[in-house]
């Protein structure tokens, strides 16, 4: 995780927030460094993490996580991390032997359908992964998705994708249970972090629909953009941190902060606009 980003977000692995939906959005650049940040952050915080990694291999995330001081292999072994490697899962689905799994449909089952109107198998996978078992001692569950836009490329409809997120929110962010004496007990409030791509003047209407809808329902939006002036060696882009205070309190306005950043081998530094170290 990146210490400077934690400062900007006023976040700490010692006291992770709960019940939050964070949207990571990138435009004209690669925002995946934020995914690596949150992955290592929540693992350090002791949360149980379900990572739906659709675009890269496990070893890619593992190598980077190690640079950030976290071992994904170890996290998997101790049951803290459930990792869905989308690319591998897709190959197993299409080239695998018949009925290898014990009757459980593949999470990416929808790829085989003519018109994928629901992502139920994927949701079931997430729910099962994050339901606490008796021996679990992890803190709140976390769902991390990299990246959601890929689901559209694989044939899911925008409505199916939004439904999937909605179901996940209900299951992960606010799980109610009928406790003793028939009172509803708030079991655990987990967090969801999702990455989507978006381009300005994008002609991908389905993607824009998903992104805009998610923006409306997010508690926190981290919007990473490439510089409008083009490539620069010392400033790799700009990050807009949008706290959706308007969701919590009717009269509140969203709080927006803008910083610039530079990505290094093991860290990302953030600074106020125009105050990159190269300039000062």
């Amino acid at each position, binding site marked *: 995780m990146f210490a400077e980003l934690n400062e900007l977000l006023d976040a700490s692995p010692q006291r992770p927030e709960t019940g939050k939906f964070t949207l990571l959005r990138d435009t004209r650049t690669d925002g995946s460094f934020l995914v690596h940040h949150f992955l290592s952050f929540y693992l350090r915080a002791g949360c149980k993490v379900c990572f739906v990694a659709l675009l890269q291999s496990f*070893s890619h995330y593992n190598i980077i996580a190690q640079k950030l001081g976290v071992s994904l292999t170890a996290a998997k072994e101790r049951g803290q991390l459930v990792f869905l490697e989308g690319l591998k899962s897709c190959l197993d689905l299409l080239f695998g032997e018949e009925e290898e799994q014990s009757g459980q449909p593949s999470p990416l089952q929808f790829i085989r359908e003519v018109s994928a109107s629901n992502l139920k198998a994927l949701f079931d996978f997430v729910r099962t992964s994050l339901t606490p078992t008796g021996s679990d001692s992890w803190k709140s569950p976390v769902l991390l998705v990299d990246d959601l836009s890929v689901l559209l490329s694989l044939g899911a409809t925008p409505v199916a994708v939004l439904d999937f997120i909605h179901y996940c929110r209900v299951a992960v962010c606010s799980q109610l249970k009928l406790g003793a004496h028939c009172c509803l007990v708030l079991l655990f409030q987990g967090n969801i972090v999702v990455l989507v791509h978006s381009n300005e003047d994008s002609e991908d209407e389905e993607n824009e629909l998903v992104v805009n809808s998610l923006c409306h329902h997010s508690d926190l939006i981290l919007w990473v953009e490439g510089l409008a002036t083009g*490539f620069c060696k010392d400033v790799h882009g700009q990050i807009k941190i949008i706290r959706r205070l308007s969701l919590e309190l009717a009269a509140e306005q969203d709080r927006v902060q803008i910083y610039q950043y530079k990505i290094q*081998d093991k860290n*990302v530094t953030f600074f106020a606009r125009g105050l990159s170290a190269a300039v000062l």
Partner: protein
Amino acid sequence: LVFTEEDKYGLYSNLLFKYFLAEGVVCGHDLFVASAKEHPDNILKELPAPLLDDIYRSELGEETAAVKTEDFQDSMKIAWRYQNLPKMEASPTTSTKFGHYYDVSKTMSPELFQSIKWHSFYLPEELSLQPKMKTCNMNSAYTRLLQSIQRIIYQEGFDGSDPQKKKKNILRIGIQSLGSVLWGDDICSSDTPEDIHSLTKFLYVLRGLLRKSLSACIITVPTHLIQNKAIMERVTNLSDTVVGLESFIGSERETNPLYKDYHGLVHVHQIPRLNSLICDVSDTKDLAFRLKRKLFTIE
């Protein structure tokens, strides 16, 4: 996964395609060539001949004598690494070179092919076979192609699944003009294609195959024909490297004095960020190419 946007007539992207394959032959890699319009045997007969060091130096001497003094201060680098343009005074040595040089006026001699193994996929010859891959509502040509690639990767041991067949070699896959009508896809012929997911599903599965094996792939796509830009955005996200070639043929740039020494522009749309937070971005972003009698160069 290197995604190349074809120039309008496919001349230069075809050249890049052949360079990729030629480099494979010279490095001793296995090749897999797929095409729906040209038989792979013919493609392989037209690979450029590699230049050996001493021949190269004299060739370069000829070429540079004819060229006006240009500014070579920054080391020029292109995203698809197979060629480095050296500074004028130094000549490259094999130990520091990455990639090889080719003479496009000569074709590669058949002897060079003897040492490597190559596989081909020519769509018209593959239509009779039944794919064993499970259906996923994908265009049948793509399905067959994926089936074929997967079979070679598995049988030749590029995925390391069979410890006895484990290979330490690389499979270079080249797919020509993907998405064109010849592959049975209508994204190039209609702005509301019937099946907008076939190409992206294909790329996703291909990406999976590449990630789990020792292989690299170049595909060329006639993007100038694709009306639906949403597909192009999705394809870009699914590829690692995206390079576009824009030739000046028939465009107004042909007569622009700024470009008079060049045949077209190279647009590097995306480069990969793999296994690392950082990526290898070059300082030079405005690149143009030219095809001289013997050399294809990017500056």
